[in-house]
């Protein structure tokens, strides 16, 4: 997995330690701790994983194993507007892949990466539980349902003005 280097500030380390502590520093809580850490930093650079490993007393290799196993976790900073496309079965059969391809084509980045201006990033999600709206796309916290390839442009346009 490609990653980005980061020098953690002492306050960031402190934050991570508190997260770990809120889960009693239990090794079994690794996934939950990583979830929280990703919420705070937006992604999980090596340095963050090292602190988590130390706090939960698990090998850092194991932490990295978990981070690379779950597609939810990322080691790259996400864009200011992270785009998530659900590729669960329901969305998939209703054209999620074409929608995904359209995002990739317009933004010129593959899944898991961020545009060079740091604005958008693309990730895939397993089922988000909104199958009635399939195919589902999320940009940040906002959910778009029944997205078509033609609709992709319009979604992106919504974020045009914000620069």
């Amino acid at each position: 997995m490609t990653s980005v280097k980061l020098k953690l500030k002492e306050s960031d380390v402190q934050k991570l330690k508190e997260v770990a502590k809120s889960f009693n520093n239990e090794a079994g809580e690794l996934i939950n701790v990583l979830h929280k850490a990703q919420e705070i930093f937006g992604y999980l650079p090596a340095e963050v994983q090292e602190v988590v490993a130390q706090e939960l007393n698990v090998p850092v290799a194991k932490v990295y194993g978990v981070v690379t196993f779950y597609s939810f976790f990322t080691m790259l900073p996400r864009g200011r507007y992270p785009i998530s496309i659900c590729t669960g079965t329901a969305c998939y059969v209703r054209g999620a892949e074409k929608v995904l391809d359209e995002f990739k084509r317009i933004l010129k980045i593959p899944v898991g990466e961020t545009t060079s201006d740091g604005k958008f990033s693309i990730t895939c999600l397993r089922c988000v539980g909104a199958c009635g709206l399939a195919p589902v796309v999320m940009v940040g916290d906002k959910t778009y349902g029944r997205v078509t390839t033609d609709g992709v442009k319009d979604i992106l346009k919504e974020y045009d003005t914000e620069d």
Partner: protein
Amino acid sequence: MELIKLTIDNRTVEVEKGTTIFHAAKKLGIEIPTLCYMNLKDLNIEHKPGGCRICVVEVEGRRNLAPSCATECMEGMVVKTHTVRVLNARRTVLELIISDHPFDCLICAKSGNCDLQSLAIKLGVRDIPFQGEKSTYKPDFSPAIIRDMDKCIMCRRCETMCNDFQTVGVLSGINRGFEAVVAPAFERDLDHSECTYCGQCVAVCPTGALTEVDHTKNVIAALSDSKKTVVVQTAPAVRAALGEEFGLEAGTLVTGKMVAALRQLGFDYVFDTDFAADLTIMEEGTELLDRLTRHLGGDKEVKLPILTSCCPGWVNFFEYNYPDMMDVPSTARSPQQMFGAIAKTYFAEKINVKREDMVVVSIMPCVAKKYECTREEFATDGNPDVDFSISTRELAHFIKSANINFNALPDEDFDKPLGESTGAAVIFGTTGGVIEAAARTAYELHTGKTLEKVDFEALRGFDGIRSASVDFDGVDIKIGIAHGLGNARKMLDDVKAGRSEFHAIEIMACPGGCIGGGGQPLHHGDSSVLRARAKAIYSEDESKVLRKSHENPSIIKLYEEYLGKPGSEKAHHLLHTHYFDKKSKQVLLD
């Protein structure tokens, strides 16, 4: 104990509740094939991820085939281990595994010794119906171990050894599906991880995914260079295992044949690391006595317990995990390195050969020694004290490739002076041996009396963590012993936390000590061979006339002619070392 009755292949068997189908079948003499499963009984390691599905059987009433290595027996179960459906499933599983595996058998280091290959032979795989892309991954060449993940079958045995048994925690399964491999954190190379090079992952890997760096070629090149004087040393544990590679029963001592073979291969001097083990005892034993005497005299500064330092896997582990205790281990170098230092000074001068014209080769049960001999502090002007370290397995290959009929060789003796040794030295090869050897010498030097019984039975055994007291004429010396790095960690953490107190601790990185080293003939899951090797080691000790290091005449002469006395300035320069804090020096490389 609750008993359960079930039927396997129409025969009834009674087993304890909790027994797996695999073990129940075994009880009936039915050997179900396995691949990912590993059971090292003597080390209390049972690895059953249930991942490969080679061991599937049919269970009446169940729709799916069950992995026998991970399925518990139930009362009244009816199991069939070789129905057509089972055999087809096993073959399909194997074909699928092979379809994502390089067809490298002809040139693979593991060929002839590979569990995947044996299984393909056993199941008679003749063609692979599944064609498609194969997963590939960058190879990793460290100073001691090569990782070729294209040959990884994701059995994850290496993880169990590295993470659970050794508690080093370098390896983890990463990614998922087709992309999945076993790798260090952030996919760094082993050389940039906390790997100790203990080689225990190599020792259990069923395929050629993990192998040692092979230095045989370099050794052959040195042997064919007429300008070079090539000196070889053999570690204690090698003689107790090498025979296995030639079909001899585990525990057969082949010291004399090994010497004869090395001579036939063309080494100019066939010496013994055991000589250096005796030397280690002189230096380490003196250091122990010195610290003890000061301690008993009320010196509060003195660091105890003293930790042995002859295992480079352990030294690496220590340097990563206990940087705050750098001054606790003995400063004595390992026997391999002591040997190299003496060979390239004392002995080279004796035979009038320049350092650059001498090549020192070591035969080791060990993978970590390959790394150790590359450490900068063990070289003079860039010329290493030990040039190449090859494993027991590499030596066996070398002997076979030279067309030597090993089993028919006569017994020969080591050359002198660096081939002379005592019984105390040979037991270095097994857990508890180093500290027993040290006790024999330290006792006599401390009390001035002759030991009536040289066998310290209390220090022997196979438990991962042991402790015993040795009576030094009224003074109780408390000794701790640990083998396997996980056990070492427990023992050291207890000492650090003040939960236990010792005067001296022996630590070996490998299970059983060097007899279970990462470079030894593969045990293929049968850990009882380790016990057999240990027995052989003790029998060689018993057969020796001299059994205390300080009685070795060549050692006595070495001190008289060259070193002065143990711990002298010259001895320090040549035979001692210092340690490095590798934790804080570790750089993040992405």
